[in-house]
């Protein structure tokens, strides 16, 4: 965004949120053989009017965190406070009412739109659920406003989702969220399913809408370039926890966490000059299984700055190093100051757990044959 909106108080506070999912297995009897620690103690704050970007690689728990915040999936522990209301105890009707104020934009615009509903009924449905369709006239007017806002022609109302292009569908998804006049929009990978040439349209739209309606965004994405472009502040997640949080500019300028550094250096830049010169911090190995996270610092198995002490045993907490810059690394200052040198990391190869589908902890397989279909 060109001009960051005025930064207000916290609209959303997440406090030590944990989301663990049991892994069930067994040929004859299902039993819980372990847990996937999808989100394992995340605390963050989203301020009114800002865009908070949550970035991380697949399996880091960012999507689960987003759904947990909206209570679409029940968290295991921790608190989510939205505008002063603790959502943890909220259930049933009050929770449903609360949903009006927190909306979601999904990754896949096609699958998130019911193929059997026209755009009109898609948009009206949420309004009806919250008694916002006061009358035929006013509803029609509201629909026109929404379409104009997301840049769709009013003829779109009678059409069905499959008749639109990917970018347009995402606009419909955004309009659906907007229809409820929410305060917070959680956008989960809002552009990653779109063609590159179309991504910019949606990114710009999101920015414009924020300016127009004073929205607060929580943007979840794996593409750091996109997140950095759109967000005021960014949280970097690794294996179920935040490792670094700061504003967008400082993140690029002075990343403090080794993981953030590696992540930034891994992103290719469409400029040969930059590419030819830059120094890459290549991480070895793969993301450990969230069902069996490493002890101590979750990153220590791959960290080029890992130290013999502390890293393996003591889990670093997020701590504020500079103003508004929090890092979960024992040695952040020393690394920044160059007191600790990078070293080789011998890859500790850990095969991924075959059945663990970290972000989809929903139904366990009914039998061995059913597992087959999960490829």
């Amino acid at each position, binding site marked *: 965004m060109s001009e960051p909106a005025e930064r207000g108080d916290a609209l959303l506070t997440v406090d030590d949120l944990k989301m663990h999912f049991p892994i069930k297995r067994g040929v004859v009897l299902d039993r819980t053989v372990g847990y996937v620690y999808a989100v394992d103690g995340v605390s963050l704050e989203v301020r009114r009017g800002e865009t908070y970007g949550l970035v991380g690689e697949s399996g880091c728990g960012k999507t689960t965190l987003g759904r947990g915040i909206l209570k679409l999936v029940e968290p295991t522990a921790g608190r989510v406070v939205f505008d002063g209301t603790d959502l943890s105890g909220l259930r049933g009707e009050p929770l449903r009412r609360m949903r009006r104020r927190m909306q*979601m934009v999904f990754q896949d615009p096609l699958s998130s*739109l019911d193929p059997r509903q026209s755009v009109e009924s898609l948009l009206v449905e949420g309004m009806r659920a919250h008694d916002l369709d006061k009358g035929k006239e006013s509803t029609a007017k509201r629909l026109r406003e929404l379409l104009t806002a997301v840049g769709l022609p009013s003829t779109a109302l009678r059409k069905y989702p499959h008749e639109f292009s990917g970018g347009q569908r995402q606009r419909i998804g955004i309009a659906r969220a907007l229809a409820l006049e929410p305060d917070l929009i959680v956008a989960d990978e809002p552009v990653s399913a779109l063609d590159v040439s179309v991504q910019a349209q949606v990114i710009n739209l999101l920015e414009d809408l924020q300016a127009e309606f004073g929205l607060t965004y929580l943007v979840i994405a794996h593409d750091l370039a996109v997140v950095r472009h759109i967000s005021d502040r960014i949280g970097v997640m690794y294996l179920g926890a935040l490792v670094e949080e700061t504003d967008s500019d400082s993140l690029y300028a002075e990343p403090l966490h080794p993981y953030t550094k590696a992540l930034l250096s891994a992103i290719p830049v469409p400029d040969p000059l930059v590419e030819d010169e830059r120094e890459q911090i290549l991480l070895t190995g793969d993301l450990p299984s969230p069902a069996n996270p490493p002890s101590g610092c979750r990153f220590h198995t791959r960290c080029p700055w890992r130290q013999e002490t502390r890293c393996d045993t003591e889990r670093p907490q997020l701590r504020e190093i500079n103003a508004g810059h929090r890092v979960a690394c024992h040695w952040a200052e020393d690394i920044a100051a160059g007191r600790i040198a990078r070293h080789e990391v011998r890859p500790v190869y850990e095969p991924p757990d075959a059945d663990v589908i970290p972000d989809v902890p929903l139904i366990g397989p009914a039998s061995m044959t059913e597992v087959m279909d999960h490829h």
Partner: protein
Amino acid sequence: MASARATKIDRLAGLAVRSPDDQDPDGAGPDSGLSLAASAWRRLRRNPVFIVGAVVIGLFLILAVLAPLIAPHDPGLRLLEDQVSRARNEIPPAQPGHPMGGDQFGRDFFSRMLLGSQQTLMVAVLATVIGLGGGLVLGTLAGAFGGWVDTLVMRIVDVMLSIPSLLLAVSIGALFSQQTQFTVILAVAIVQIPIFARLLRGTMLGVRESDHVLAARALGVKGRSIVFRHILPNSLGPVIVQSTLVLAIAILDAAALSFLGLGAADDATPEWGQMLGNAQDFFDSQPHLAIWPAACIVVVALGFTLVGESMREALDPRQRR
């Protein structure tokens, strides 16, 4: 462990939740933008298998509707009884007014074949409707509520599924002291209930976790509304396909019950399966009494099977080619 039959049904259920355009991105064909149903219909319309099946079913339906008007005689009246002789094993031959002669009781065989279509259709449709209805109720209960309701319903369903279907139908058929067309329908239908229930529940569980249902939940749409406006309508595809196939199965099962002597005792209103079952004894001497109903059953069952299978193929993107 759920039986593999149950698993198979669950897998069928899976075809509804698959995303419609999971083709390779570069080969995006002309129908990549169409919805599941629309593109399925497009594929169906061009599928000769479907067309043949649809034509067969169409003719069968027309016949069933018009049969009472065309049929020259009452199928229950022993009009030609005087030409029947047990002693000489004679049945009335074709003659003016009775183009196919009479059956072993001297009833007009042509009229019986014609009206048989109506009764056969009734058996097929009623059995399917009852099976589907029961399955819908159970499946919706399980699929919508989940939790212990799901567990309970599915345990019942699993036990039912662990008995081979014809065995179950025969057992149910034997339960009635007086066998009528309705008991046959019921026996055939009850066997289908667990299949429908499991199928629907599987699909619903899949659809329940789909993005658009999540979206509806995020919108704050009420639970009932989510079930009936989103989950259920989007879960019906495989169930509809299955119903088409069950229409065929019902006709075949009814015939099997008759063969085992569990068909309707009263055959004044004819039904093909029953006619076939009862004609087995005369196969050597009067083969046409068996062959005609058998041929009609095969053709109609084939029609339903063709339509059902082509619908399944059309709905299953993996088979899209």
